[in-house]
């Protein structure tokens, strides 16, 4: 089946099985291994991607559902000049340890910041409550997002 969608700002037409899981399509067919899989059943948030700006789980979405959509993976947020300033904030705050949850955390936070440019700590915690992190205890992740939101200029390129 041919599927057309926009991936990280580029229009794409690919031939794939319609029931291919989106996480497999990204990782195995398109080589975008920034999207992680851990639980495979919607419980951990590692496989988060943005679909039309909204955080969704690529392990419980099928390729056919991408038709006509605009998809952002972690690879799509950094430019030629380097990492996205939110990624820089994660580094600055030590919000990354093993790194497995990080792409999902960053994308979920970006979706939040898209709706709510200056979220409270509570709103950040609530937004990432579907992204499990077993290393950091979340505080540093919340710090990173909060600092990024309030000091956006500092990180602005």
């Amino acid at each position: 089946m041919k599927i057309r969608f926009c991936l990280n700002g580029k229009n794409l037409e690919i031939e794939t099985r319609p029931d291919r899981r989106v996480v497999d399509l990204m990782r195995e067919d398109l080589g975008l291994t920034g999207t992680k899989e851990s639980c495979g059943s919607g419980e951990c948030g590692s496989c988060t991607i943005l679909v039309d700006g909204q955080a969704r789980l690529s392990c419980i979405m099928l390729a056919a559902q991408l038709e006509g959509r605009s998809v952002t993976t972690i690879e799509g947020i950094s430019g030629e000049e380097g990492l996205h300033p939110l990624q820089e904030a994660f580094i600055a705050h030590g919000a990354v340890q093993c790194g497995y949850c990080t792409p999902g955390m960053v994308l979920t936070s970006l979706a939040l910041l898209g709706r709510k440019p200056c979220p409270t700590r509570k709103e950040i915690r609530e937004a990432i409550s579907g992204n499990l992190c077993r290393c950091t205890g979340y505080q540093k992740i919340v710090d990173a997002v909060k600092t990024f939101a309030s000091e956006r200029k500092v990180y602005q390129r």
Partner: protein
Amino acid sequence: MRRVFLANNTNELWDMLRQYPEAAIYAGGTDLLVRMRKGICDPSALICLERMDCLKGVREEGDQIFIGACTSHTALLADPIVQRSFPVLAAAISRLGSPHIRNMGTIGGNIVTASPAGDTLPPLYILGAAVEIMSMDKTRRLSLADFIRGPGHTDLKPGEILAGVWIKKDQPYNIFSLEKVGQRKALAISIASLAALLRVSGEGIIEEARLAWGSVGPTVTVSKEAESFLAGKRPEPGALGEAARIAMDAVSPIDDVRASKSYRRLVSGNLVLRLGASVDGNSPQPAWLPPAD
């Protein structure tokens, strides 16, 4: 290869269902695709309803509100009619799954899954919701309580889909309460839950009570006995304690990985005690010790 079709409207949907009567339908896929992954089901084709705009959204019709089956939980939480008229439903949805699950999952999927732990079901029961079922040549309406036949079973026949739910707009209650007990705040399937609607008079007397428990029986548990016992009483520890005892007899919980039968029974009662807190901000203490069973 499993075929996957995206229906954009009812004409396309009926055509697809005629051509592939064996196809499974899904909306958000947060139940069906997980079950497929676990090998519990293996449909030969899938029809996805996520683009059926005619089944999305909340609208007012006369004294009723219609909620389209394919409305996502996130959309429901943001809807002013739901916030204003059905805060008990909004409270339950705000505790369902996680933000991602709420972005994807739909109210229709939650109803048709008919899980004993389905979080929208207890509030929908006490709001007196009716479901609208649609097939190629007709639509029919029945109460949610009649639609849910048992765990995982509904009255849906082949060729039928759930179009949405109808709820009376003006509900005669002034207090709501929603309690969900799980192992953590997000991403926790409920161990026991209680949705309640009360009409409390200016003098502090309960005039009418509606109560529904989740996760403590094969489907939603209601107790006419507890409801009528509370009518005419003040929401004080004595009366609530007696209603709690009635509730503990009404529920029929099971042991599973999440909790034991006896814990669920005890919690079902204790949640009734908390109604006092919803009424006046004071939390009554448990009036009895845990039962021996």
